[in-house]
């Protein structure tokens, strides 16, 4: 338990005090916000919160507690089946909920902007990301005011466009995209998860809004980039007096970024106050639980076993055949305009059967690409890929469809982007049951042959990942980001794979749920001898779960070895940088 010690407080801090009451209206004032579904189910009730100009407020809470809904309601972007009542004022503009879409639109993107939780699906797949960023700028820069511009002269518009493009590239550079000019030219699907997330952030920052709502903006970013982005947001807040509503599950980030924190559970605000106070002296039981779960014990401390064999070179557990073996694998992507991206530049690694292997590294370093190769979803340009005894790719070429199927009957994958990887037309029960429909996948699960048996397994696994009972009959779009991520995990686990490759599986989960899911993974790994290849930008997660870890950067593995060794004695400068940049839950400020 690493709950920061802090002296008990005599009185609660003043609630929602604007920093400078007389000077500026609060960036955001939400009063009594209630959100109901069309079937009159209340999702959010009586939420009130205030963000003063220049204030940074963290919004934390359980997955599915209504954080995203609050944020969406502020911008008037709730899904059509939801209705919001209450009052929302933003930077002097009153009662946004009562406004029509037409009157709200000019405010969005300029006065208030938002970073969406799931960046993978939030970008228009058909438009180059540079243009998407530039569009935000041009949309709001007309002499007729925000959103206007009917009278714009064509010539000036042309000039403004070019300027917006240039500015977009600048923004992409500021959010830390390497080679921003080339990145601006890429389509969303050509970018990694973290890169897309940064594009979203660039869009939100483009017009220096008075209120910035950031919904888990750094879930896909490695800690070094995260630090850079957080610093950028901090600069914006300071420079423009922007109010920041920062939704995150990462308490350490909250403690470094925010001044005040609001805690939600089950659609209500359960606690709020200055970060230091709340973290030091949580009043609500949930907050206490949250803080308790926020630090993960390193695996080494859990598992006082014999140290794995020393040596950083490619090696598996003694005596066991490797479940996964990559030798000198390269992968190159081609983008339009002849741009080539070397996503993997000759990586080699080996994961023994039953081993838990972590993959950390820079955003865009090729982690997802590596996992795709393991699942046989892509073929490398060169090198050998062996999974579960099958050579998926090697000097002899790529494996046959039957071999790939053999691999997949042992291997399941959790995708980095839950939203896109769930068929929007299928109910969750069907999505989760899907792997069970292939007899090859359910060799160890005789009961899965029947419909009822499958339903039972689905119910079980949904409960195990902490989803409510009614989840089975609902559709993906009716869930929160974290809930979708758990659906995606449930799908991968339901048929008890031997190998699990998971791409940021817990990035959207609040720490309490995260603990639950990680426990589940650990238990399965132990019980069933699961081989785990886990990508995470969260070093604590890797340290908690994995035996060995590889650190990637720019398509190369810069360092690999037993987790504790890498943690305690990092050899590569980048590893050290990662470690240094990891935010810690610090209450002392």
């Amino acid at each position: 338990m690493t709950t920061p010690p802090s002296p008990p407080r005599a009185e609660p801090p003043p609630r929602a005090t604007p920093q400078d009451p007389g000077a500026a209206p609060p960036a955001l004032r939400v009063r009594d916000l209630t959100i109901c579904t069309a079937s009159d189910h209340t999702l959010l009730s009586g939420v009130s919160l205030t963000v003063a100009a220049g204030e940074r407020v963290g919004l934390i809470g359980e997955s599915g507690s209504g954080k995203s809904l609050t944020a969406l309601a502020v911008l008037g972007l709730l899904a059509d089946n939801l209705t919001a009542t209450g009052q929302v004022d933003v930077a002097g503009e009153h009662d946004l909920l009562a406004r029509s879409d037409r009157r709200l639109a000019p405010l969005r993107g300029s006065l208030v902007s938002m970073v969406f939780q799931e960046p993978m699906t939030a970008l228009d797949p058909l438009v180059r990301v540079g243009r998407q960023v530039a569009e935000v700028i041009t949309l709001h820069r007309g002499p007729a005011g925000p959103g206007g511009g009917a009278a714009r002269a064509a010539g000036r518009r042309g000039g403004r466009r070019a300027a917006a493009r240039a500015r977009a590239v600048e923004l992409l550079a500021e959010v830390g995209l390497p080679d921003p000019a080339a990145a601006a030219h890429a389509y969303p699907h050509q970018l990694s998860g973290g890169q897309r997330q940064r594009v979203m952030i660039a869009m939100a920052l483009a017009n220096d809004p008075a209120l910035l709502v950031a919904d888990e903006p750094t879930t896909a970013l490695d800690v070094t980039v995260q630090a850079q982005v957080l610093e950028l947001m901090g600069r914006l807040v300071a420079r423009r007096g922007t109010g920041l509503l920062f939704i995150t599950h990462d308490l350490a980030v909250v403690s470094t970024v925010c001044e005040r924190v609001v805690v939600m559970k089950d659609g209500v605000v359960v606690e709020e106050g200055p970060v230091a106070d709340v973290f030091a002296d949580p009043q609500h039981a949930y907050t206490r639980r949250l803080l308790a779960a926020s630090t993960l014990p390193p695996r080494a401390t859990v598992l006082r076993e014999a140290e794995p064999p020393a040596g950083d070179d490619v090696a598996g557990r003694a005596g066991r055949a490797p479940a996964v073996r990559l030798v000198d694998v390269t992968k190159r992507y081609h983008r339009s305009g002849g741009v080539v991206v070397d996503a993997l530049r000759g990586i080699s690694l080996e994961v023994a059967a039953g081993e838990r292997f972590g993959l950390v590294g820079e955003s865009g370093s090729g982690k997802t690409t590596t996992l795709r190769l393991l699942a046989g979803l892509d073929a490398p340009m060169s090198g050998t890929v062996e999974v579960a005894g099958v050579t998926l790719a090697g000097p002899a070429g790529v494996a046959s469809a039957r071999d790939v199927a053999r691999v997949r009957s042992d291997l399941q994958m959790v995708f980095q982007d839950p939203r896109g990887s769930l068929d929007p037309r299928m109910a969750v029960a069907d999505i989760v049951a899907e792997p069970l429909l292939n007899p090859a996948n359910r060799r160890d699960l005789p009961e899965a042959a029947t419909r009822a048996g499958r339903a039972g397994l689905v119910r079980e696994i949904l409960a195990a990942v902490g989803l409510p009972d009614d989840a089975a009959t609902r559709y993906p779009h009716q869930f929160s980001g974290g809930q979708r991520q758990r659906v995606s995990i449930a799908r991968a686990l339901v048929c008890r794979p031997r190998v699990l490759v998971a791409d940021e599986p817990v990035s959207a989960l609040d720490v309490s749920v995260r603990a639950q899911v990680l426990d589940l993974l650990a238990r399965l790994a132990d019980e069933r001898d699961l081989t785990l290849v886990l990508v995470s930008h969260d070093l604590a997660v890797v340290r908690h779960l994995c035996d060995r870890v590889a650190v990637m950067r720019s398509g190369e593995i810069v360092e690999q070895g037993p987790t504790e060794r890498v943690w305690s004695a990092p050899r590569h400068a980048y590893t050290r940088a990662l470690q240094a940049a990891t935010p810690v839950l610090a209450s002392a400020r």
Partner: protein
Amino acid sequence: MRTRVAWLVGQVAATLAVASVLVFLVLRVLPGDAAVVALGVNATPDALAQWRADHGTDRPLIAQYASWMGGLLRADFGTSFVTGRELTPLILDRVQVTLIIVGLGMLLALLVAVPLGTLAAVTHRSATGTLIAGASQVGVAVPNFLVGVLLVSFVAVRARWLPAGGWVPPAVDMAEFWRHVVLPSVALGTVQAAIITRYVRSAVLEVMREDFLRTARAAGHTRGSALVRHGLRNAGVPIVTVVGVQLAAMLVGAVVVERVFVVPGLGSLLVDAVQQRDLQAVQSMVMVLVVLVVAVNFVVDLLYTVLDPRLRVVGR
């Protein structure tokens, strides 16, 4: 790149070659004898034999095919069995007419259908949406000839604004060309508009719930402008597909409108030639159609990759 071009060219060439054999053979099984049709009811066997010898239809199929192909390769469709006229200028002339009215009709249809279909999708639960959807659905069921007849009777017969039919090539008299081309294009376009509206509505409904539209709105778009700016393009692939299919269908399917407005297009020429069993003309026209349709679909496939970068295969 070069291999890709070669692959495409080869593909098209192979398609045309196979199509030519198919078309040629299939037409030989048409019931009815061109000689009898040409010479009519009182023809003597001698006369029939003479006619067949004159027109080469008594030669082995291989020889007939070879001479037809030989002509095609020189862009020479031969002479019609029945009219004795050179087919090449005739068919090209008709193709031009058809392309003009079909093109204009499709343009009109798109100008109407895209906004209307989008509106129907956006308002799909309200009265407006239901009304548009309903109207387009009924529109699909309205026969071309009815639209044509109504247009003629109001615009041409009652009001005498425009001629009831006929055709003046643009090269002859531009003003008259436009006066004659309006009604047939509108008649074609109306029915197409109804059809395409249905597809646009469906395609737009499909993208309407996408997350990126929410992003666009967060960036400052209204619901409508987000849909126009980002939604339509995402709905573009199915729409372009349907436009391609409908264009192909209209090349021949415009025959009803051609009849009502007395437009000398490819459709009516083909129907006449089929009725007269003028196989030389029919097979050449069908080949022209195959070329046009393959071209249209080639463009459609190309547009897919323009519209949707995910469908692009770069560098291969």
